[in-house]
């Protein structure tokens, strides 16, 4: 095929060329993750939402009072992920759970890094396990580990 007969080619990168800041509430939570700290936000009735939301999910009031909560909590419900989705942060089978941290009135979604489903039960206590290098992202939390095991970070 001569040079003039070759089809025209152009590089196309599919992108989402917009940025937005995470704001005072989500941003504060993400900054906390980088510092190995977990924050929630107080509602007008005194209860605490973790992870924090900018507006009250029931009354729609703007929320502003951040409070630090514990790095340990209770598994409210769980399922077993095997194999993990290719895009997910985890390579090994693990539990997907809703965890209510001590000091919080709501639960957050994250993994419990247990070896098998037989180690899982509703109501078990778990503690945060952090990544060595943290960038201010939900995956700075490597997951949670059962409290019977040694917390290594």
């Amino acid at each position, binding site marked *: 095929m001569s040079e003039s007969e070759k089809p025209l080619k152009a590089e196309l990168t599919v992108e989402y060329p917009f940025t937005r800041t*995470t704001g005072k509430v*989500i941003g504060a939570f*993400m900054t906390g993750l980088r510092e190995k700290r977990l924050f929630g936000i107080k509602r007008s009735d005194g209860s605490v*939402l*973790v*992870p924090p*939301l900018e507006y009250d*999910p*029931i009354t729609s009031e703007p929320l502003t009072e951040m409070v630090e909560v514990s790095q340990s909590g209770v598994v*409210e*419900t*769980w*399922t*077993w*992920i095997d194999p*993990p*989705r290719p*895009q*997910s*942060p985890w390579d090994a089978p693990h539990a*997907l*759970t*809703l965890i*209510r941290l001590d000091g919080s009135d*709501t*639960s*957050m*979604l*994250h*993994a419990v890094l247990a070896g098998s*489903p037989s180690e899982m039960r*509703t109501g078990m206590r778990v503690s945060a396990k952090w990544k060595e290098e943290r960038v201010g*992202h*939900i*995956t700075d939390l490597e997951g949670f580990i059962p409290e019977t095991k040694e917390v290594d970070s």
Partner: protein
Amino acid sequence: MNESHNFRDVAVVSVASHQTKTLSEVNEVQLMADLISKCRNSAGVTQEEIGFTCSGSSDFLAGQAFSFVHTLDSVGAFPPISESHVEMDGAFALYEAWVKLQIGEVDTALVYSYGKPSAGSIIDVLATQLDPYYVSPLWPDCFSLAALQARLLLDKGLISLEKMAEISKRSQKNGFDNPNAVRSSKDVSIENLMNEPTIVDPLRVSDISEITDGGCAVILATGDKAKSLCERPAWIKGIDHRVDSHTLGVRDLTRSSSAFLAAEKAGGNIDRLDVAEIHGMTSAQELILEKEFCLTEETQINPSGGCLASDTMMASGLIRISEVARRIISGQADRGLAHATSGPCLQQNLVCVLEGE
């Protein structure tokens, strides 16, 4: 629905749907061209006589921006038509069409929706609808989230594994007479269902919906126009949709309060319901919905088999409406409730109550 308003009478006058495991060598345009023709022919109308056209589909599922524009080829968009689209299940497109008919400028509407999940990975597509900061980066698939909900119900003693198996059995038996049902069986037993392997603990194979390709088309008409197009129109007596928080951790996942509210506002249980078609992606979700809608033994629930038998993303909700309407139009039922859901763990819910005369 608030009785003090003067709503125009709107009815479903014609329906057509098709679902199958994999639509091979048939694209969305070909699928919908066939269904829309069937629907228009059975009502005896041409596209020129349709006042408004509204569709529901997902660009995320099709992998292409404005993918619904291609599918308009199946409608025939010349001469120019009045048209709209929702990135939602077709049941929500039907709601938009119902509002358009209330405005009073047009008397007929065509509503359709479709999905072809076989071309991609639906469980990953659904992960992208979640909170982009806290949840989506963890890529939880839709069935895992539904499993968290099912375990909460089991732990609290609100349902049992046997009860879930009974729902799966009902679906598979009912689906046997439905050509669109992909998972169906005449003689499935509770024992076999209880012994099925777990897919996402505690959900077994038959506890989760059977993902299929397909689509649905519905024609709506007002008052005398409806009576001229259909011998026994299925009148929309109430339609309402409500939303729970996007954040899973703040909701009581053992309930769907928005489903309850939508049914109450639509007048679901002010009178006997002969039939109910409910939209859940697990047996456990069907149990939640039965409770929220206060359904009793006098109501036949999911005679089509429901989504456990055949679940087409973006069309399953509209198909629930078409299944109830079809039974009213044919005289098999007098009054029915149709439900559509969207979002994780029954977050958004639409209820449509239909009646024959």
